């Protein structure tokens, strides 16, 4: 490995599903000599691409967990963090983005910028990740890399610049013209491993010159030296590389590479692009929160001599115990280094330190600032920070969305019960968007997540990895309740049953909070409620809002204004005021005209235009609202807003209606009001369930 930080790259490969991301990763490993044979995703040879290392992923042909893989190219060390492509696993994507210094945005030369490309690009933007683009599948019918470049500009607002032009497209895709060196590049040999450089074919020369002009124009914005050189006619390749690199790292330019990973074209040129244009760890600014200093931000230095700071970004249960993937942000570690988990305050000692290549691993002796590695035998949760003793910092927390769907699960027998508990413990540590709890009323185990597929995958993993068979109930949507008008309360909680009495009176009003969150306003004058009990009232209201009266779901978006009350010298207590607040909320809730809200998803369906009519139909059936439809020749995209409750089984329906040619993605958009008829049905169901429980 190289210890020179300027020769280190931590990159991710981000893409829409089916853009060929896994195939591309596979080829990168092959050309970097990490694997000796090429496998395909859903391999015809039954082996599957090396990065998809979980059996389940292999079977479904999707990548779920992000494994870090180490490769070497042209004297550089590259860590590739494989990011999952499905929106249901967005937290995995976001967590891996946190540790990236740069990314390759893979696009399909036919499909171009698709709905999920937009999501992924937005995430990359959120974490300020510089990116280069790879337009894959240039061998496919309908491939049009220039159109994809235009879409990068139009839809994603990238300043996208072609670094290459194709020599032939579709089944005539033979190679590339490199616009920097102005040569034609072909990829020979059975696996495209032999690179042959020739003169540009005469018929492509005019286009190549024009595109080079465009590229130089864009690059010269980032380098005065290049601008001068252009004027004086002495442009060198180095000058171009430097300018493109500067623009890319500043995230003001996106170099676009082309090829076909499947047909072994262009991957080596992309690797050159990665080491040339994406930043090394020292060129990216990272900061942590100083825990002793009220969370003040401190900059981390990519300096092996500074106190060590590590982020655990991924846990995996392997045959040898828990594997913790870490990124070192500052300092260095080796076997025996003492560290503190700054969340749990636990001290650990670095034991075995390894570097991963998908399923096989290599022991290493140390890791320093900028490195990605994995530790054995460390107990922690993902997202934890480890730091040198005395250096009490936390890496900024990663944004975690609230789950929108839940599912009751029941182990089939006693043995499965224990295993299920073990599995759930592991999953919740690995994935903060996956949660579990036992419902206090039904005593069922409930799992919660970001979508149907998200939960499905975990149920499957329980079976496969933990041998825990569970029965699942009907997926349950995470409804919410909210009030719609302002209403006043005046409630006295009083109990005199011998011994210490209880007394508390609260007066005020509740009203809808357009922000959608809970807000407590203390407007009590003259100490009518002693200060120490104000907090009790707040707590009481929070408790009351955990379960609404309509269907037993949390109440959101309420502002409580407390403006008067009464206390008693002896009988008032924390407990009494909490009870008063709970009573007040029960009293006022119905007056405030409560409503049921449901999660509404933003759904994008993409596929051939001929199926657009079918898609419109499915959206209508599912109480959806079509926002727009975009037709671009043979491809069309429909964007809609559909209640989550209506989205069950959509993938199956879509597949059968369109012969598998259309696909959809969805993500949480907002909470929306539910139609009255459905609200009544839900309320009746809730009332019946309650009555049944009481009868028992």
């Amino acid at each position, binding site marked *: 490995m190289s210890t020179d930080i300027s020769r280190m790259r931590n990159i991710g490969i981000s893409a829409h599903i089916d853009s060929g991301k896994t195939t591309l990763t596979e080829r990168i490993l092959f050309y970097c000599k990490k694997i000796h044979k090429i496998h395909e995703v859903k391999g015809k040879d039954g082996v599957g691409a090396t990065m998809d290392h979980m059996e389940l992923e292999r079977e479904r042909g999707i990548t779920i967990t992000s494994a870090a893989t180490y490769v070497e190219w042209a004297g550089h060390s590259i860590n590739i963090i494989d990011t999952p492509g499905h929106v249901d696993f967005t937290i995995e994507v976001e967590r891996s983005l946190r540790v990236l210094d740069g990314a390759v945005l893979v696009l399909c030369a036919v499909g171009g910028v698709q709905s999920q490309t937009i999501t992924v690009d937005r995430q990359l933007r959120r974490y300020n990740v510089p990116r280069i683009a790879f337009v894959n599948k240039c061998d496919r019918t309908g491939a049009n890399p220039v159109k994809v470049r235009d879409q990068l500009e*139009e*839809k994603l607002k990238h300043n996208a610049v072609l670094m290459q032009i194709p020599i032939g497209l579709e089944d005539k895709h033979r190679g590339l013209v490199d616009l920097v060196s102005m040569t034609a590049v072909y990829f020979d040999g059975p696996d495209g491993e032999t690179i042959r450089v020739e003169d540009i074919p005469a018929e492509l020369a005019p286009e190549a010159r024009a595109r080079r002009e465009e590229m130089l124009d864009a690059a010269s914005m980032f380098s005065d030296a290049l601008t001068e050189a252009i004027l004086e006619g002495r442009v060198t390749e180095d000058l171009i590389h430097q300018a493109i690199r500067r623009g890319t790292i500043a995230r003001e330019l996106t170099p676009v590479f082309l090829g076909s990973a499947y047909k072994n074209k262009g991957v080596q040129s992309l690797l050159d692009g990665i080491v040339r244009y994406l930043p090394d760890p020292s060129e990216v600014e990272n900061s942590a929160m100083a825990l002793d200093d009220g969370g003040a931000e401190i900059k981390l230095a990519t300096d092996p001599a500074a106190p060590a700071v590590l982020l655990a970004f991924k846990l995996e249960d392997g045959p040898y115990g828990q594997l913790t993937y870490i990124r070192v942000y500052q300092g260095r570690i080796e076997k025996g280094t003492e560290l503190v988990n700054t969340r749990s305050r636990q001290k650990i000692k670095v034991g075995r330190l390894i570097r991963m290549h998908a399923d096989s691993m290599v022991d290493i002796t140390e890791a320093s600032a900028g490195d990605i590695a994995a530790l054995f035998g460390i107990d922690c949760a993902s997202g934890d920070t480890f730091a040198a003793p005395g250096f009490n910092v936390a890496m900024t927390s990663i944004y975690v969305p609230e789950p929108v769907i839940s599912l009751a699960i029941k182990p089939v027998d006693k043995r499965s019960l224990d295993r299920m508990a073990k599995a759930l413990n592991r999953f919740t540590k690995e994935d903060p968007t996956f949660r579990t709890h036992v419902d206090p009323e039904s005593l069922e185990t409930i799992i919660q997540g970001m979508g149907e597929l998200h939960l499905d995958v975990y149920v499957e993993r329980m079976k496969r990895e933990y041998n825990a068979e569970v029965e699942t109930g009907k997926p349950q949507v995470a409804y919410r309740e909210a009030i719609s008008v302002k209403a006043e309360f005046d409630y006295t909680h009083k109990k005199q049953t011998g011994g210490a009495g209880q007394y508390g009176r609260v007066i005020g009003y509740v009203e809808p909070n357009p922000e959608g969150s809970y807000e407590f306003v203390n407007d009590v004058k003259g100490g009518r409620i002693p200060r120490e009990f104000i907090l009790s009232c707040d707590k009481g209201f929070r408790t009351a809002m955990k379960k609404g009266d309509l269907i037993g779901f949390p109440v959101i978006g309420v502002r409580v204004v407390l403006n008067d009350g009464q206390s008693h010298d002896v009988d008032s207590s924390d407990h009494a005021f909490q009870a008063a607040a709970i009573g007040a909320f029960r009293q006022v809730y119905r007056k405030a005209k409560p409503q049921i809200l449901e999660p509404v998803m933003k759904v994008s369906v993409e596929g051939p*235009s001929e199926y*657009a*009519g*079918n898609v*419109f*139909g499915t*959206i*209508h059936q599912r109480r959806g*609202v*079509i*926002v*727009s*439809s*975009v*037709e*671009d*020749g043979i491809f*069309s995209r429909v*964007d809609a807003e559909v209640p989550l409750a209506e989205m069950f089984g959509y993938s199956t329906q879509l597949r059968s209606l369109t012969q598998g040619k259309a696909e959809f993605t969805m993500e949480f958009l907002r909470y929306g009001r539910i139609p009255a008829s459905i609200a009544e049905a839900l309320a009746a169901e809730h009332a019946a369930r309650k009555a049944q429980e009481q009868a028992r």
Partner: protein
Amino acid sequence: MVRTELVKRSPLRVLEGAIHGGLGHGNIAVLASPKGVGKTACLVHIATDKLLQGRHVIHVSYSSRVDYIITWYEDIFKEIAKDRKLTDAVDVHDEIIANRVIMNFKQDGTKTEQVLKSLEAMITFGKFSADTVIVDGYDFSRSACEDLAKFKDFAGRLGLEVWFSASLRETGVPFYDADGVPAMLKPICEALDVVITLHALDQHVEFRVVKDHDHPAPGVLPIKLDPKTLLIK
């Protein structure tokens, strides 16, 4: 002001009156002007007025991006709501927005047959009971008469009002003939039921009705578009 009142007092009632009760189902209107005068704003106004009346609108666009069109609607709704002090503006907004669908086509790649096929799919499969279709960005300079005839036939069959915008381009001949009809629309004028031209004056934009079904055209209308707020008054 409540919603029904707002509809009743809309300046578009003046336009409706001038063209004898409105465009009418099965008919086609064109708003024409050179680029940048305010055609899209007017179309969005007309669409928003229909939406406020509880009707369903399909907005077809050939050039703009979808989010750009949505912003147009949001802005104009906001301006109207503010100007007219619309009560329950948020609820009204949420209610009418569900009755609007945007369909975007790439002009180069999409033939009129395909556009109409998709529109029909939206109306029948999507159960979207459209009443008005807005077509923005259609290139009249290369449209053939038969294309427009297809639209007309479609409008008649499905009972739709169709409102086009036409961007007038510099071609060497004057934009308008002696009757004020855009030269570019001359060859297809027969197929059009209503033609309105927009004229940017110093302070505002003026509307001239140059064709009104089979009636004599009423000419300049007593309403105008404020180029700053993009409100019609």
